[in-house]
């Protein structure tokens, strides 16, 4: 596949068109009906949670939140390939992938409500915490991949980054180390066309992101990131490639950030309604729905009921998060080291003395 879709030709790997028609049946991935229904539901759930997160934030019930609206098929594809023993190395805009890996929505809410506890993802196997410094997590993926080889594990590492992130040095170093080490890493670039306000065309003059793999001798492909089938198929090929010892793969997943960068951003400052509308036609959920309805795998009339159910569940998890216990003073200190220093113990004791004194003031 990496030969057929050489990024040098800037061909986009698609399986399904915007109307949900399969235009590239040779590359249609094998997904059972049940699995597909689950995939669609999960994407629907993620979108609903995402929309509600934005509105919780507007209500002042959460601090900041990075919307995934429009990018659900990338996480949806990852959900098709990630196994327990595989690693997910995310940035911060991978809601569906986190959930697929075993994180709970409540945890995600907790994180964006301001608790580190929310990024522990304690029931998710092999997932690294949310990583905010752009690009830096890709290098961890290379290291994790080295350890996979070293320990002869059967794991693939899925590492996620945005289009803006491809400009930073760590992107380059990570891809280089991963290839030099033949590490089983699949790098997925969510090319949502913006880094906050900066459009992709200001990030680089390369014809696309996938060609950047050539600089490392890495197999790479540009995929329609709003096409669940294309994403799934590309990820499966990448998985096979990585597992067979052929080294890492770079997947550019072309998509569009339909929402704001975060809830504190206002995209009207830097892009047009027309552009937004143009991209809305490619929406990953709409396309998949059309396909599934046509295949009689989905009854759109049920969707409202389902959404009502989802809303309840999302509200429930959000409220649970809202009722999370207060953040104890001890939590500021106790995780700083495995072997905590006297210095930190003292600082805590001293602060407690102050708190007592402050009590006395009143």
């Amino acid at each position, binding site marked *: 596949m990496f030969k057929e879709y050489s990024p040098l030709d800037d061909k986009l790997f698609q399986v399904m068109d915007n109307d949900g028609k399969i235009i590239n049946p040779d590359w249609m991935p094998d997904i059972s009906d049940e699995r597909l229904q689950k995939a669609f539901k999960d994407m629907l759930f993620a979108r609903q949670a995402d929309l509600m997160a934005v509105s919780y934030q507007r209500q002042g019930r959460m*601090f*900041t939140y990075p919307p995934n609206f429009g990018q659900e098929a990338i996480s949806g594809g990852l959900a098709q390939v990630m196994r327990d023993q595989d690693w997910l190395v995310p940035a*911060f805009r991978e809601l569906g992938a986190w959930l697929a890996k075993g994180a709970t929505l409540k945890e995600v809410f907790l*994180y964006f*409500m*301001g*608790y*580190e506890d929310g990024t522990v993802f304690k029931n998710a196997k092999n997932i690294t915490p949310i990583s*905010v*410094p*752009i*690009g830096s997590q890709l290098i961890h993926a290379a290291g994790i991949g080295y350890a996979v080889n070293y320990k002869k594990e059967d794991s693939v590492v899925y590492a996620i980054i945005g289009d*803006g*992130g491809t*400009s*930073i*040095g*760590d992107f380059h170093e990570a891809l280089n180390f991963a290839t030099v080490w033949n590490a089983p890493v699949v790098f997925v670039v969510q090319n949502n066309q913006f*880094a*906050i*306000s*900066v459009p992709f065309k*200001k*990030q*680089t003059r390369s014809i696309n992101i996938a060609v950047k793999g050539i600089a490392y001798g890495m197999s790479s492909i540009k995929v329609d990131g709003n096409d669940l089938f294309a994403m799934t198929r590309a990820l499966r090929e990448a998985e096979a490639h990585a597992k067979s010892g052929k080294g890492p793969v770079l997947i550019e997943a072309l998509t569009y950030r339909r929402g704001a960068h975060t809830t*504190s*951003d206002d995209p009207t*400052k*830097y892009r047009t309604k027309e552009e937004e509308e143009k991209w809305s036609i490619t929406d990953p959920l709409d396309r998949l729905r059309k396909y599934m309805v046509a295949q009689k795998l989905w009854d759109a009339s049920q969707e409202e009921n389902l959404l009502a159910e989802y809303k309840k569940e999302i509200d429930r998890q959000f409220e649970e998060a809202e009722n999370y216990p*207060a*953040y104890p*003073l001890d*939590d*500021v*200190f106790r995780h*700083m080291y495995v072997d905590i*220093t006297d*210095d*930190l113990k003292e*600082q*805590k004791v001293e*602060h407690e003395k*102050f708190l007592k*004194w*402050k009590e006395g*003031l009143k």
Partner: protein
Amino acid sequence: MEGGTEMKVMTIVQAITDAIDIKLAEDPTIVTFGEDVGVEGGVFRATEGLQKKYGEHRVFDSPLAESAIVGSAVGMAMNGLRPIVEMQFCGFVYPAMNQIISHAARIHNRSRGRYKTPMVIRFPYGGGINALEHHSESMEAMYGHIPGLKVVIPSTPYDAKGLLISAIESDDTIIFMEPKRIYRAIKQEVPEEKYSIPIGKAKILNEGTDITVIAYGAMIREAQKAVAMAKKDGISVELIDLRTIYPIDKQTIVESVKKTGRMVVVHEGPNTFGVGAELTAIINEEAFLNQEAPVVRVTGFDTIVPLPRGEHHYIISPEKIYYGIQKSIKF
């Protein structure tokens, strides 16, 4: 300022925009760039409107790469420009550390004065805005420890404008750290015209006789509240705004402590190897015989700034500063 000057009410962030605006208008060698600096006008709007006014060649977005932002400014400076670059947050400067330490701070020395790097690296710092991880750091002591840099932190709109103009006009590399917590919290009448405030000079905000409190940036406001609490209890505090982290205005500080005999230092960054340590060392060296009590450090913990729900534990309250004052007085 002289009478007759037009004044305008500004926030700190507006004062910063105003300083850059004035200098862009005046000096064609000045350019400013960074992530989201152009069309968006910066995530905190510190460069709002400037691209429209001065064009894309002078005010622009860069790709997402801090090392290249700082390093290319070094190159521009060597070829005659005077760049002002924005790093989006204090916590995102680290990818640029090599360019800052190894080049921006050194080219002048390495080339024995042949090349200057008249550049400003400006970024918001500090906690208290309920932000994600890496958005609340205060690493001024780290920059102060790097030979070749000067480090400036304003605490008011008036100072922000005057100090930034000095920074832009300086032929040295200036780290200009902006207290984002009070970007919009303080409004002040600021002269519309150009003026500058010298780098390296602290300011006595409040004269007092019993104890000296030294703070800067967003901590000034908290310290002022503590000063008011102390006043109620009959303690006369001399409050000093450090304004420049390096070079430190030893004279002002030492004179004050010689008078009061006591000192409290307040800062948000980690305690150990922080600004408080250096100020203590200076007092110990220069005013030892006048010291009536140990210097009290009211600072951040030696921890990562917690996420918002835990941040109240970390953040320095006026009460905590007053606690420090009491501790010194009662010694």
